[in-house]
């Protein structure tokens, strides 16, 4: 096995950087556990061996654990690549959302229509490709290796780019360079990058009150980070149920602003009886006056109780979710805590918690509560009243993290008891969030492993590479002043950045990553500061575990207590399996070497090694459970983002068809009338449409539903007729004439209900259905 290694300090200390280097002392001192540095090194070393053996293709372990792990690995890869696709699609949909609005309003010039159309046309999967020559491939491979493994460059770049430049950088960094969301090395490198940016922010923000507050490229990156797979599944498991059950109560009004309550009270009274005393109450009074009105108080008081109950419920699940909170998010909280302590040694817990809260609650939890749809937690848009309730819940949670001043909205002071009751609990929770281990040791190991893998590679598009190249070039003066730095050398060899290629010509490149500056190390022990005995011990343990995992559990060799010599011997003499024989021989060699070094003792059946092997096997046994449980959770995540993907794609399709339709109509004058073939009718039963969610509410009595069906027809592109029929009757009960424009406009205005008297359709679902059924070759 050849492991390449750079100077051992590389992973944690940058040498020629202007970024605050992460000092080893600093990170070590934050180890709270009792493990000494040496122990932890040994621990990581062992992990290294285990992970290397997992990557070795020569011995195929096919036990249940291995199979479960493979399923999980594949799932993770799929989530990572799907996330990226969604990110790109979301950008397209956002762009088109704004353009289509103009188009519907007839305010788009022809050239612009063409531009939008061209944007749409290439919104297909990008093909694979390669650089024209090996030299480019190598240089870019080297550049990207450098950027990936030395996060300080990107950290620095993040501080230099403008908000306008951030989008392309964001995509490349979050979904390509560190795009494997579940791979510890990439995750840890990304977190290291956040750390160096945070450090810089702390060092350069004059008052702590404005810390972490501005919207910067970094804050945007952190948002994107919190919304990747792990963050998404956490939000879903912690919030989705609570939010969904609130949203179902469409008419639950928990407004506590006395003025609004007062006004609504008058409105309702007027509607009922314009002569009633309530209807005659004076309008235009002040908030204080409204608050003093006994009727208003009577309405508000029970609402305060309910709001408090609801917010308590949210808080409870959030706090219970402590252990489920993604590691990276907790680790960022931890950084905020230690940076605060470092910069403001006198800072009390309140200050620290406020800052943690401005990340955890303000940027992670609360946005998902107030706009759950954009976090894929719910399907539809919440109605006004539940939306308001959710906003109150978020405000209450935020008030727990900040010291609220009721100067702004005096009526919020009524919720003070909630704050008092929970303040300490939440502060404790936030400090517990910080209670996670650092990863520097593992990261170092992971980096070694990565280097030893021959297949370190990145799927990246031409335009991503060129945009990155361009950004680095633009900020050359800041990023690589030292012309001897590795970055400067590669950049000067690469020459000027090529311009972006048209979307059609963009290609995905499978770029092998490597570094010309890393040299192979022969002596892991020196590099890692551990002894030769330990290396032998670890290797032996790893080999025995592998062997045992490949022999059938019921074979006599696997009987307990394990007899290591017997196992090694069995492996070395196994038939028809050269790899196994090699392993067995190596295991025997190691045993005798360890014996000579007096690490283990044959007379006690190598108990020291045997017990560790046994422990590792038990650990792997329970690992299987863990792997299975994680798989189940991730299946859920994958489903969510796939659904979201389907939604985005159908949205794009709808726009595409609509645009074609509009364009062919404006061309229609000059061209011959296009063939106008009537499509349909297509028949759908009530039950079908209900199942697909097209019918979101039905006033048809249950026993009649089986007799109701619908016909969908498209007489002209962009025009639809939906008719409702009752079995056995000739004539329809109702006919609705629909235009695609209307539907799109309703969707744009978040009006989800399409009223058909007997039933209520869901607009986005209708669009999806029409899209599926009536997609004409060019437009609808």
């Amino acid at each position, binding site marked *: 096995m050849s492991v390449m290694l750079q100077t051992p300090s590389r992973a944690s200390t940058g040498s020629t950087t202007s970024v605050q280097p992460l000092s080893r002392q600093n990170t070590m001192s934050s180890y709270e556990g009792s493990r000494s540095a040496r122990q932890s090194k040994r621990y990581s070393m062992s992990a290294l061996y285990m992970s290397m053996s997992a990557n070795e293709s020569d011995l195929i372990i096919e036990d249940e654990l291995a199979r479960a792990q493979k399923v999980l690995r594949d799932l993770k890869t799929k989530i990572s690549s799907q996330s990226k696709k969604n990110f790109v699609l979301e950008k397209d949909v956002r762009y088109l959302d704004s353009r289509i609005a103009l188009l519907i309003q007839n305010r788009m010039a022809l050239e612009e229509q063409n531009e939008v159309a061209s944007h749409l046309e290439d919104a297909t999967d990008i093909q694979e490709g390669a650089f024209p020559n090996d030299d480019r491939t190598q240089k870019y491979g080297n550049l990207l290796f450098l950027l990936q493994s030395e996060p300080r460059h990107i950290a620095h770049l993040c501080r230099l780019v403008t908000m306008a430049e951030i989008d392309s950088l964001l995509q490349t960094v979050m979904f390509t360079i560190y795009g494997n969301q579940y791979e510890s090395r990439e995750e840890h490198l990304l977190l290291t990058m956040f750390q160096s940016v945070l450090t810089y922010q702390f060092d350069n923000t004059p008052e702590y009150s404005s810390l972490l*507050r501005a*919207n910067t490229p970094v804050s945007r990156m952190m948002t994107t980070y919190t919304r990747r797979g792990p963050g998404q599944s956490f939000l879903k498991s912690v919030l989705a149920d609570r939010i969904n059950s609130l949203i179902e109560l469409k008419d639950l009004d928990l407004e506590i602003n006395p003025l609004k309550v007062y006004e609504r009270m008058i409105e309702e009274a007027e509607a009922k009886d314009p002569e009633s005393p309530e209807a005659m109450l004076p309008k235009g009074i002040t908030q204080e006056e409204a608050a003093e009105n006994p009727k208003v108080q009577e309405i508000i008081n029970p609402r305060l109780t309910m709001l408090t109950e609801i917010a308590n419920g949210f808080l409870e699940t959030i706090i219970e979710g402590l252990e489920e909170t993604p590691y990276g998010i907790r680790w960022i909280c931890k950084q905020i805590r230690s940076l605060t302590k470092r910069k403001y040694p006198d800072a009390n817990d309140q200050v620290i918690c406020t800052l943690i809260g401005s990340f955890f609650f303000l940027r992670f939890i609360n946005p998902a509560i107030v706009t759950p749809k954009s976090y894929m937690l719910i399907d539809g848009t919440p109605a006004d009243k539940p939306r308001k309730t959710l906003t109150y819940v978020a405000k209450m949670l935020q008030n727990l993290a900040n010291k609220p001043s009721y100067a*702004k909205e005096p009526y919020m002071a009524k919720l003070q008891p909630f704050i008092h009751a929970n303040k300490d609990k939440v502060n404790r929770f936030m400090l517990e969030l910080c209670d996670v281990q650092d990863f520097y040791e593992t990261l170092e190991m992971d980096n070694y492993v990565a280097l030893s893998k021959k297949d370190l590679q990145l799927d990246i598009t031409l335009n991503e590479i060129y945009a990155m190249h361009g950004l680095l070039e633009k900020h050359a003066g800041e990023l690589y002043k030292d012309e001897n730095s590795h970055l400067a050398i590669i950049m000067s060899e690469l020459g000027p950045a090529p311009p972006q290629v048209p979307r059609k010509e963009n290609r995905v490149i499978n770029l092998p990553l490597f570094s010309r500056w890393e040299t192979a190390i022969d002596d892991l022990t020196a590099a890692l500061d551990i002894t030769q005995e330990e290396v032998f011990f670890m290797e032996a343990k790893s080999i025995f575990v592998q062997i045992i995992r490949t022999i059938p559990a019921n074979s006599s060799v696997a009987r307990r207590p394990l007899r290591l010599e017997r196992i090694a011997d069995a492996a070395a003499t196994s038939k028809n399996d050269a790899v196994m024989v090699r392993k067995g021989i190596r295991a025997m060699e190691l045993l005798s070497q360890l014996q000579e070094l007096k690490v283990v003792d044959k007379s006690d059946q190598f108990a020291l090694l045997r017990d560790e092997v046994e422990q590792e096997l038990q650990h792997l046994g329970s690992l299987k459970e863990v792997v299975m449980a994680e798989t189940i959770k991730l299946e859920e995540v994958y489903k969510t983002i796939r659904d979201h993907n389907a939604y985005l794609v159908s949205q794009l399709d709808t726009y595409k068809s609509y645009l074609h339709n509009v364009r062919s*109509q404006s061309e229609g004058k000059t061209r011959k009338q296009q063939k106008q073939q009537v499509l349909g009718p297509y028949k759908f039963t009530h039950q079908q449409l209900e199942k697909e969610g097209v019918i979101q509410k039905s006033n048809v009595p249950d026993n009649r539903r089986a007799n109701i069906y619908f016909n969908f027809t498209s007489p002209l592109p962009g025009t639809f007729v939906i008719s409702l029929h009752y079995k056995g009757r000739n004539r329809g009960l109702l006919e609705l004439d629909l235009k695609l424009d209307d539907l799109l406009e309703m969707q744009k205005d978040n009006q989800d209900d399409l009223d058909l008297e007997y039933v209520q359709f869901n607009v986005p679902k209708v669009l999806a259905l029409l899209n599926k059924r009536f997609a004409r070759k060019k437009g609808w």
Partner: protein
Amino acid sequence: MRIYGFQPCREFHIVVLGTGGVGKSCLTAQFVHNEWIESYDPTIEDSYRTQVSVDGRQVMLEILDTAGTEQFVAMRDLYMKAGQGFLLVFSITSQASLDELSTLREEIIRIKDDEKIPIVMVGNKADLLDQRAVDRKEAFAISQQWNAPYYEASARTRTNVDQVFIDLCRQMLRRDDSGYNDDDDYNGGTRNGGGGGGGYGCGQKQEDGSHGSMMKKRRRKRKGDHKCIIM
């Protein structure tokens, strides 16, 4: 039909927008409650109601103070739909905070479908002269392009606080007086009409094509107006 000039009290919705920490809440609290808030609690969504007198006329204002924190972007659409006048706030100590306004303005114009929607641009924290990062001239030039008045204000010293709100009220009143139609939720109205300045002239063409005109007619219809025949 509306009767102009006789209503005792006009009601307007103002939305205060701008990136995090520029002082939106401080400005609003100063204006409404005459209070200076030193602490910084990030806003999620606060609403205020106040009555002011503008050139002798009573105006009831509903002011929505929004979240500058970008993670709440998805709420913006709703605010913008509800707003009739917009305060675009940045801090003179941060160039980036000014840069963000142009996206906000574009979004407002798109959502309101109206280039003349009342807007006032505010450079807040004018008291922090030694930290100034945005040239007054630069900000002014931008406001000119947008056809919006520009004020430098300080919530801390209460400089120009009333002025920015009052200016916005004047703009809204002027529009209201001239019968400008901005509430298409109330009268299923002519969205492109009345000097919206948005027509690119392609609407005309469509009137000729048979289904073009149909589409255009349909387009004006609001929800619930679909041709729904019960047989």
